[in-house]
């Protein structure tokens, strides 16, 4: 039986703890699973769209995850002990993704928040360009572990089209790295509280210690909730 059918069958039969060994690129593992107390451990390399539409369960990956981890996830947790490559946490609606290593491009593209749901992505290492592209809500934290002093843990075009939520980076971020609609701002007391909570979660998940020197953190937030206003012809088409 195919892997995903087996996982779905186990969930339907009420399993609360599923351990999958020897995973090699199988896609959509745990997608749309709903049980809040379900725990799925994955050893190997899960394929694209790991935990897509996840709503409640916890998925832990002992290895690297491929692209589009946590696609449009609603709630729950995905913990990756290795790296999680491109478009991690795209369209995240809730829940949390923790990555011990690095990530690729377009991390957290079009994340959003609604009501009490505040999704968060924490990346231990570095990310590529287009971090938080078209971001509409939630929080991204990049810790830049292992990045030499004076180098930036993030790429260019950060937060292009961002109109909600915040991106936090520990390490150097220069103005030219920002995309259209993004701006650098100071850390407030609320931010420190949030970062402390996220870092504590990260430390507990991976059993590591992260230095909390708040002066090293940069906050990137939207310039406005309508970054492209004025860039298009405002003539209403229905007149």
């Amino acid at each position: 039986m195919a892997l995903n059918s087996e996982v779905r069958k186990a969930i339907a039969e009420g399993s609360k703890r599923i351990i999958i060994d020897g995973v090699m690129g199988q896609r959509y593992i745990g997608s749309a699973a709903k049980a809040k107390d379900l725990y799925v451990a994955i050893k190997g390399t899960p394929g694209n769209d790991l935990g897509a539409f996840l709503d409640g369960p916890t998925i832990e990956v002992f290895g690297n995850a491929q692209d589009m981890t946590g696609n449009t996830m609603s709630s729950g947790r995905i913990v990756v002990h290795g790296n999680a490559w491109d478009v991690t946490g795209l369209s995240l609606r809730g829940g949390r993704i923790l990555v011990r290593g690095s990530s690729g491009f377009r991390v957290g593209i079009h994340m959003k928040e609604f009501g009490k749901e505040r999704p968060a992505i924490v990346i231990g290492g570095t990310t590529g360009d287009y971090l938080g592209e078209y971001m509409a809500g939630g929080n991204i934290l990049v810790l830049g572990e292992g990045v030499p002093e004076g180098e930036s843990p993030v790429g260019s075009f950060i937060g292009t089209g961002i109109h909600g939520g915040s991106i936090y980076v520990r390490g150097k971020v220069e103005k030219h790295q920002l995309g259209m609609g993004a701006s650098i701002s100071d850390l407030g007391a609320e931010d420190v509280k949030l970062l402390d909570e996220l870092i504590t979660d990260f430390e507990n998940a991976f059993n590591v210690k992260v230095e909390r020197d708040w002066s090293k953190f940069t906050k990137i937030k939207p310039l406005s909730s309508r970054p492209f206003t004025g860039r298009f012809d405002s003539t209403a088409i229905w007149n």
Partner: protein
Amino acid sequence: MKKGYDDEAEFDRREDLPLLPSFGAQRPPGLQYMMGGCGIAGTIDVNGGKIPGSTITSMLTTMRERENGLGAGYSAYGLFPKEYKDHYCMQFFFDDEDARIAAEEYLKDRGEIVREGSVPTKRVRSMRPPFPGVWRYFFDPQPRSKMFVMRDQTPDECIVDIVLGINGTIPGAMCVSSGKDMAVFKGNGYSYEIAEYYDLERYQASMWLSHSRFPTNSPGWWAGAHPISLLDWSVCHNGEITSYGVNRKLVEMNGYRLSLLTDTEVVTYLWDLLVRRHNLPPQVAAFALAPQYYSQIERMDERSRKLAEQIRMTYKEAFLNGPFSILVGRSRPDISMIAMADRKKLRPLLFGRSMDGSRYYAVSEESAVRVVEEQAITWVGNPGSPMIAQVGKGLMRKGTEAPFEGVFR
């Protein structure tokens, strides 16, 4: 009287077009969903060791959701024994005996066939016909042949003339590969079917590139499968070149004739034009294909900025717009692999290195590396920045450097 617009009653354009089924409110049968995108995988042994065909087969077939059975292919470099290494290895698909005879005549008029024979293939039950014959000629061009429009061209130019000439003029004959010390094995089928069809386990090579196809806007046919090859270049491509029309004009103005009905063909000819004919270093050619934004060029040091501006102006028609990740192989001066994504990184590409540093990988998905090398180190490159690995030299570029690193002396 000639039929035409003047005579509306007798003019029916339907006859000129293929008859396709039409549907009303009922959902048409067939493909109900679309997923995937092509898969690419390449591996090179920089110490000159040989990699068995079974390695590349398991790499490519692991990414099973990236293909739909309408084409797959493999190119092998460093394949032939010493006595055949220095001849051009020309591989063909022939639909019938007439096509083979015509192509052979064409070759004999323009050089000497050193050795010929059919490429061994196996019957694979799951594959659908047609099955074109696959032939291989070891060939030396004769630049003084009166059949060439231009005399005394370099042997490479002669081969380009011959390949494009046969592909464009002989029905039922298509040249699949024409390089030295390399060959392409491709066809219309799933990646595992093509591997079995050519019995890849019998081959050992210093470098393998491979591709499994999910065609979205061009037909699935044997010659249109990747890698698309000319001389020792072979290109595997995931994505689409939306600027195809402009790029096509540039290569056509430079004497290339396009006949494969796929956008990847233009990428192969661009590499040949930019690197072999115009002598650009590979990372500069990569910049021409996927240039950085002017906002990024502004921040470069003066020398790099000038070069970047010149490249963007000179080669603006070589700029490949649209999402892509490509693997490019060549065998001269040494066997090397170039792997890069477009300037916005809109298609997946991951690089890998074996623990002992002898093998390098470039793949669409991490699992393609892990399946053959559990302990490999993997990383992502920057958009438009090529990873280059060469036999004898190792890793020349990681794909994270500044665009022109190593270009200035």
